[in-house]
C-alpha cells in the first residue's frame, strides 16, 4: 500500500483526482436512480401520456405546415417529440434539485460539500450526474417513440446527444438555482406550478410559435424569451442533424448564467448560511 506523502505543503489536486471525483458522483447518482424504479417509470409515463393520448387527440385540431427542420408535412406526434424530450429533462432537472433539497435535509449534501475539491466543481459534477440520468430517460423515451413511428434519421440519435447534454445542464442548473432558495420540501410543489408548467406551456414544445403569434403577439414574445423554447428548438434541430444557432447561443448563455448563479447561491458565506443552519442545529 502506498505510504502517505508529505501533506502539509499545499499540493493542489491533480486532473486524475478531479476525474475520480466526477465519475464517483455520476456513479452514485446512477446507482440511486436504479434504486428508484418508480422514478424511472414516472419519468417515462409522463411524456408517453402526452404522446399517446394528447397528441393523438390533438392531431386533427392542429395542422403543422412545413417548418424547419422538417422537410415534409409531419404528424403532430413527430412535432411534439422534441418538446417531450425537453420536458423529461425539465422534470429531471427539477427532481435532481428536489433531491438536493432532500439530501440537504438528510445530511447527504454535507458528505458532498466536505470534499476537499472546490465547491463549484462539486456542484458542477452534481449537475452533470443529473444530466446523465436525464439522458437515460430521454433515450428510453426515444426508443418507445420509435415504435410509435417517430423515426428521426438514425444519425439524429447521435447528433442530438450534445444538445441534450447542454439543455440538461441548463435545466439542471436552473433547478439547482431555485432549490437553493427553498428551505422546505413542501415549497417545491409551488415551484412545480410556478416554474415547470409556465415554462412548458409558454414554449414551442406543443405548438409552433407562428401559431402562437397569430393568436397573441405578447404570448409570442414571452415564448421567444423563454429559455425552455430554445432548449426544445436546439433538441429539435439536432435530432435532424441541424444546428439552430440562436437557440444554441441562448441555451449556452443561460447555462452559464444559471450555473454561476446556482454555485454562488450555494456559497456558504453568501447563500444558505445567512438564513440559518441547514437541517437543524444540535
Amino acid at each position: 500500500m502506498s505510504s502517505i506523502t508529505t501533506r502539509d505543503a499545499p499540493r493542489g489536486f491533480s486532473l486524475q483526482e478531479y476525474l475520480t471525483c466526477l465519475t464517483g458522483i455520476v456513479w452514485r447518482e446512477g446507482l440511486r436512480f436504479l434504486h428508484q424504479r418508480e422514478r424511472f417509470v414516472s419519468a417515462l409515463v409522463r411524456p408517453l401520456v402526452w404522446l399517446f393520448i394528447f397528441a393523438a387527440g390533438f392531431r386533427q385540431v392542429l395542422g403543422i405546415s412545413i417548418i424547419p427542420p422538417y422537410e415534409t408535412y409531419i404528424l403532430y406526434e413527430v412535432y411534439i417529440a422534441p418538446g417531450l424530450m425537453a420536458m423529461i429533462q425539465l422534470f429531471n432537472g427539477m427532481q435532481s434539485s428536489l433531491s438536493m433539497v432532500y439530501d440537504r435535509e438528510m445530511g447527504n449534501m454535507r458528505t458532498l460539500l466536505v470534499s476537499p475539491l472546490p465547491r463549484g466543481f462539486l456542484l458542477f459534477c452534481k449537475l452533470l450526474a443529473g444530466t446523465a440520468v436525464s439522458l437515460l430517460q430521454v433515450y428510453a423515451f426515444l426508443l418507445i417513440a420509435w415504435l410509435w413511428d417517430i423515426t428521426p434519421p438514425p444519425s439524429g440519435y447521435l447528433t442530438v446527444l450534445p444538445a441534450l447534454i447542454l439543455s440538461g445542464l441548463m435545466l439542471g442548473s436552473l433547478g439547482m438555482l431555485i432549490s437553493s432558495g427553498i428551505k422546505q420540501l413542501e415549497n417545491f410543489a409551488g415551484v412545480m406550478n410556478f416554474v415547470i408548467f409556465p415554462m412548458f406551456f409558454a414554449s414551442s414544445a406543443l405548438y409552433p410559435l407562428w401559431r402562437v403569434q397569430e393568436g397573441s403577439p405578447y404570448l409570442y414574445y414571452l415564448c421567444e424569451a423563454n429559455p425552455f423554447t430554445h432548449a426544445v428548438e436546439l433538441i429539435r434541430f439536432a435530432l435532424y442533424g441541424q444546428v439552430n444557432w440562436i437557440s444554441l447561443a441562448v441555451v449556452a448563455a443561460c447555462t452559464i448564467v444559471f450555473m454561476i448563479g446556482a454555485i454562488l447561491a450555494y456559497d456558504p458565506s453568501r447563500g444558505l448560511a445567512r438564513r440559518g443552519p441547514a437541517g437543524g442545529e444540535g
Partner: protein
Amino acid sequence: MTSPAPITEPRETPGLDPATVPALSIDGVSHSYGPRRALMDVSFNVQPASFTALLGLNGAGKSTLFSLITRLFGIQSGRVGIFGHDISKTPGEALRLLGVVFQPRTLDLDLSLTQNLLYHAALHGISRREAAARSGELLGRIGLSERAASKVRDLSGGQMRRLEIARALLHRPRLLLLDEPTVGLDVKARADIISHVRQLVTEQGIGVLWATHLFDEIMPGDDLVVLHQGKVLAQGPMSRVIAEAGAQDVNTAFMRLTGAQTVPGGGA
C-alpha cells in the same frame, strides 16, 4: 489486529514545526444567524494525538462550530486552521486532513457499505483500486467485512455509526471531528465506539474533537472545552478545569461553570 498504514509520518514543512502546529486551531470565532448570536469569540486548540471533548448542552453552538470547521458555513469573523491551513483561504488543503462524523446520519441507505465507502473515496479523489483496498481494510477493522455488500438500511444504529467513522478515516485524515456520535446508541455500541476512537488517538496519533453532552464519555487526561450559550467557559486538561471550578468531578464542574456564568481565566 492488522497494523494500519502509517498516518503520522514525520512531516517536513518549512516554517511549520510539527511539534507546535495544532491539529485544529479556533481563533476568535463568532457566528450569528441574523440577530441571534450562536458563537461568541470562541478560541481553543486541539493537539495532534489528543482527545478533546467539546462539552455543551444542546443549543450551546457545537453544531454551528462543526459547520464552520467543515466549511459548510462561511466564517463571519475569526479564523479556523487545520494543521496550519486556513479553512477560508485554503479549504482544499485543510479539508484533506479532516475527517468528520456529523450528528445526523449521512449515509446512502439504499447503497451497500462498500458503495458508500467508494463514493466517499471518490469525493477525495482516491482511485478506485486504492479505495477498494482501503474499504476492505476498514470494514475489517470495524468488524463488518461480511456485511460489505448489504444495504446500509439493514444495519443497526451502532453499526451505521461505526461505518461512518470508518468512512471518515478513509482518506487518512489527521484530525477527526465527531458531533455527538453516540446519541441514540445502546450501552454496548457506545462503549465500542468510544474505545475505537480512543484507539485512533493513541495508535495513530489522530487529533480528535468529540462533541458531547454526556459527561461519562470523558476520561481523566482528556482535554476539555466547555461551551455554553456560544461562549467558551473553560478549557484545558480535565483535572485543571475541575480544579479551577472548585469541583470534584466533571459533572459538578460543568454545573458550576454554566450556572455561575463566570469565565475562569486561562486559555491555551
